[in-house]
């Protein structure tokens, strides 16, 4: 791919040079530099490499301009490299001096991270109370729920997870089951303290993240004993 671009650019450059009467040395140098397999291109050759790879929209005048700029850049680039080296030495010394005086800085909490941190804390607190197993769409689970209205015993909900919505502490799963002939879908927040137990009974192979197609299918696909 590079070779093709190179050949095209060489042909283009040769036509340019014929019309513009410029010294061939300037035009011959850039393609050779761009052939080097080095990872980090020299600052002088990077612009040339770009020019070589995308030759089509450039006019001859622009090409001439870039060639002259490349020749200037080569001189400037070297000067810049020297300056950079000098500058890097000075701040390194300064950093050592500064580091000795102060203790290491605590990472600053940014405003956008606050909700994520709070959610993580809430999830950790809930996990300590009751660990939540890894749930995925297509798992057939059994959930034991304590309902304040139904004070007698734990209600048991069994069904297939048809969707999981991740929202930090309010991560919910949607369970579908055919109860007494009627399809029922219940959304449970898995980190709720009312849920006393979640147990994965089986797993059904599904190729989707949301199994809403089960609503249209026969009831026997949503029936779980």
């Amino acid at each position, binding site marked *: 791919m590079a070779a093709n671009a190179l050949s095209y650019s060489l042909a283009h450059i040769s036509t340019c040079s014929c019309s513009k009467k410029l010294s061939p040395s300037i035009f011959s140098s850039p393609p050779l530099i761009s052939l080097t397999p080095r990872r980090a291109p020299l600052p002088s050759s990077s612009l040339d490499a770009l020019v070589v790879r995308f030759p089509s929209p450039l006019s001859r005048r622009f090409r001439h301009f870039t060639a002259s700029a490349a020749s200037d850049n080569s001189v400037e680039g070297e000067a810049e490299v020297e300056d950079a080296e000098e500058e890097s030495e000075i701040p390194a010394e300064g950093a050592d001096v500064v580091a000795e005086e102060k203790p290491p800085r605590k990472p600053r909490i940014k405003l956008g991270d606050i909700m994520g941190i709070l959610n993580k804390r809430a999830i950790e607190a809930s996990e300590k109370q009751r660990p939540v197993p890894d749930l995925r769409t297509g798992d057939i689970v059994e959930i034991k729920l304590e309902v304040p209205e139904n004070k007698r015993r734990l209600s048991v909900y069994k069904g297939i997870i048809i969707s999981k919505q991740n929202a930090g502490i309010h991560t919910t799963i949607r369970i579908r089951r055919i109860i007494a002939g009627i399809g*029922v879908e219940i959304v449970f927040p898995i980190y709720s303290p009312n849920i006393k137990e979640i147990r994965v009974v089986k797993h059904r192979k599904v190729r989707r993240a949301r199994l809403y197609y089960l609503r249209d299918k026969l009831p026997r696909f949503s029936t779980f004993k």
Partner: protein
Amino acid sequence: MAACFASKWSMAVSRSLLGNLSSNNLGSLGKPQDLTSLGYNGLFFQQQLRTFIQMRTKLKVVDNSGAKWVRCIQALKGRKGARLGDTIIASVQEAQPRGKVKKGEVVYGVVVRAAMPRGRCDGSEVKFDDNAVVLVNKQGEPIGTRVFGPVPHELRKKKHLKILTLAEHIA
């Protein structure tokens, strides 16, 4: 049954509409100001948006009072309509020949199953696949003696304990 077939057909139609719209977004609409309507349509048709039980909603009757299905004529309590656990006034559209109610009678009913999800205080939501009602009298006591299918917990709070005791399964 006819109702659920009709809903499936309409869902298929709406899905195909959505498919057509998404394939050529601006080609068919042209003006950029219609993008908002396209966005709204997408929201509308991706998941069937279930709403309240209002006037002219057909509901299945799930007790043995004799009626087969009723049509809601008024939702008591609720400006937009009735939800799970609310009472409605309905008109019997079809009834079994020898039953406690006859066709054309105006009766009260308690909604025991609704396709619209109802949120519970712990953050969970429950929704059923159909809309169903249990006929009651003015005092709230069920006319029939049996209730078929699952009923939700919400009836306990609404003080429809008789229906809960008759129910086959409490969801």
